[in-house]
């Protein structure tokens, strides 16, 4: 169980709103085109699916992992 600190870069405000309202995404801070938040995952496959899901939202530029903390 990992908590990933992620940074999502968006182009439009609507994309930003959608990312922030995702159920597995805990929003930390939002400023202009950068959204910082925490996502809880179990392993690489889960991350891959979440990553591709977020990237498929129109208006999202990139998803970057900034840090991670073990859940134990």
């Amino acid at each position, binding site marked *: 169980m990992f908590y*990933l600190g992620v940074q999502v870069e968006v182009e439009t405000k609507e994309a930003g709103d959608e990312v922030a309202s995702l159920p597995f995404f805990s929003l930390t801070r939002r400023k202009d085109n950068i959204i910082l938040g925490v996502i809880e*995952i179990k*392993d690489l496959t889960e*991350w*891959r699916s979440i990553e591709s899901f977020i990237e498929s939202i129109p208006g999202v530029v990139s998803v970057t992992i*900034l*840090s*991670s*903390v073990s859940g134990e």
Partner: protein
Amino acid sequence: MPIFKLKFQRYLRPPGALKEEEFIKKCIRCGKCQQVCPYNSIILTSWENPFQLGLPYIDARKKPCYLCMKCPPVCPTGALDRNLKDKEKVRMGIAKIDKNTCWAYQGSFCRACYLNCPIFDKALKMTDELLPVVVEEYCVGCGVCEHVCPVEPSAIVVYPPK
């Protein structure tokens, strides 16, 4: 409890530690380095390796060394070099990236190790802004990268010096 499982692995010692054989001879297991560590990163060996009972080590994955350098001055016997004050001069070990498991090498955007490295942008560099690479000359072996890596087991591991 793995009481009799003797692991002949090498342990990551606190910063300023002498060479492993010297360290084992000089350390009197007083535990002062553990007491003074503000992050409680230092662990004293017990069941996991009874032959090394009481010797301090750091489990980078669990809690890395944050290079505050408070432990070398308190060591009474010099098992930790008390003159070491610069965090850049620490040589606890060298980090190595496993390119097969590192997510950045699999196509994701992950900058966790790079962003959290205390020797920022010198010991860990992002080539082409995508792939982390360890610069062995500058790596001190603190283990922060190993601690923040989202991969289980960690794709970047600190190996103590031979």
